[in-house]
């Protein structure tokens, strides 16, 4: 064997080994000194080496949030692995999807690569996914795709304990959907009302910005029927906006896609993160919503406890 051939074989072997390591290397997870059982009320705990900041109270409603996830790229898989690690610690049993669930083509292979495979451990554990539609989704395929639990509809509602969820189709907010939302919010017996949809009503991202016409139509309903929190995607960053008239607004559109350094200066944003992908875990217990936003690498980028706000009218309107 010549020397050149030996060098070539060694180089190929080195590339293969490093590639395999890239695929299988465990993700860095933040350790925490304390490990406590579920039911405790500490503000930060370690469960399986994770930095869990939810109180994990008995009979609470726990769920995860992802947005703009369906790329099928490595980053989506890494976020999904963090989600599974946190699921084991937090025991959330459903996930809400904020749209752009499947980017690009929508073949059976795409559904596998961009949804079924990354979230397989969650699906195998019985976690249910509730999808809303984004501008890159195919409403015809996705609303009929059983694992998205849309019941064949573009928009729908479901209850988890005292929390009522309303999944909306912000691509096409027609009068029928507005009528449906009006009636369902009015009839809802949920003590918490959460709406989720793709296009954000408030958004400090430079790429898309807020959907102001959608806001004009939805905000009066949200205020009239005391909606507590709104989750949207579309802008490929994480943002927690200042509460507006008693409603909390989150934008999480970076569970697969990412738009780095996307923020404009704004006093309306309480927290923003635009340098990596994230997902969120939420726990609702009594009159408090606890949340934690975790990056692809396991870093907690935002967390907190939000009281169920009593809606108070404010003057003026944001941009």
């Amino acid at each position, binding site marked *: 064997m010549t020397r050149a051939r030996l060098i070539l074989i060694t180089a190929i072997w080195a590339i293969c080994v490093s590639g395999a390591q890239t695929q299988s290397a465990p993700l860095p997870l933040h350790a925490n000194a304390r490990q406590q059982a579920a039911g405790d009320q500490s503000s930060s705990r370690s469960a399986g080496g994770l930095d869990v900041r939810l109180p994990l109270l008995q009979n609470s409603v726990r769920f995860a949030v992802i947005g703009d996830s369906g790329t099928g790229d490595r980053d989506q898989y890494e976020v999904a692995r963090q989600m599974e690690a946190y699921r084991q610690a937090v025991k959330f049993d459903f996930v809400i999807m904020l749209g752009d669930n499947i980017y690009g083509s929508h073949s059976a292979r795409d559904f596998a690569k961009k949804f079924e495979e990354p979230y397989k451990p969650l699906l195998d554990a019985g976690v249910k996914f509730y999808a809303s539609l984004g*501008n890159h989704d195919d409403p015809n395929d996705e609303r009929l*795709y*059983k694992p998205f639990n849309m019941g064949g509809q573009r928009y729908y509602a479901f209850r988890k304990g005292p929390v009522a969820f309303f999944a909306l189709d912000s691509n*096409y*907010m*027609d009068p029928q959907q507005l009528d449906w939302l009006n009636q369902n919010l009015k009839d809802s017996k949920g003590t918490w009302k959460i709406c989720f949809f793709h*296009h954000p009503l408030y958004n400090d991202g430079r790429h898309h910005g807020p959907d*102001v*016409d*959608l806001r004009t139509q939805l905000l009066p309903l949200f205020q009239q029927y005391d909606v507590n929190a709104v989750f949207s995607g579309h802008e490929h960053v994480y943002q927690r906006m200042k509460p507006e008239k008693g409603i909390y607004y989150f934008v999480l559109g970076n569970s697969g896609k990412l738009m780095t350094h996307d923020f404009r200066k704004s006093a309306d944003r309480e927290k923003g993160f635009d340098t990596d992908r994230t997902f969120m875990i939420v726990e609702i217990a009594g009159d408090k919503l606890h949340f934690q936003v975790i990056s692809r690498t396991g870093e907690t980028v935002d967390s907190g406890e939000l009281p169920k706000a009593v809606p108070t009218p404010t003057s003026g309107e944001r941009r």
Partner: protein
Amino acid sequence: MQIRISNCLWKNLLVVSAFTGIFCSGVLAQSSNDQPTVKDFQDRIAKYIASRKQENVAHDSSASPAKVTDQQKQAAQKIRHSRVGAKQGDIFTPRIAAYFKKQLEATLKGPNGAKVRTSLQHAEPLPNVPLSVNQKYPPNLPLQSTPPTLLLNLPRLPSELQYRLVGQTLVLYDTGADLIVDLLPDAIPGDVNKK
């Protein structure tokens, strides 16, 4: 003390509150002259839906995306065959087209016009997309969201159909069959989509 409000004052209050409601929601009042045009449009839509129902299009949920896609292809094929010879303007006749353009223009110039324009600009407008009547909507393209105030000022559609903006074109779209039923080019002015 009993407060008496005259009939005249009540009427004035009603007019003011109705006007305020219209102003806030951005819904424009419809002229009675337009009613025959709207009726003509609704009749054409009803005829399309009736013929579509005859084709017995299935839409069942499934865990198999391949099955869902196949179901949709079959639906589109059935409807396409039943509409052989369909052409642009079958539903958006010149008179209906003129009515739609008038409504869209009035909405863009109306009380919520600036917000509608901003939403249109943020909706990722799709220029130069090839569209044909009785053909599938071009696959793998992002959807351009349609501002709700625009939809409030157009005749309501049954759940099987949607209005969809593609660049400046208003598309009448069969959602279940993924099929373009009719087209209205230059429905909105070109400068509206520019940021």
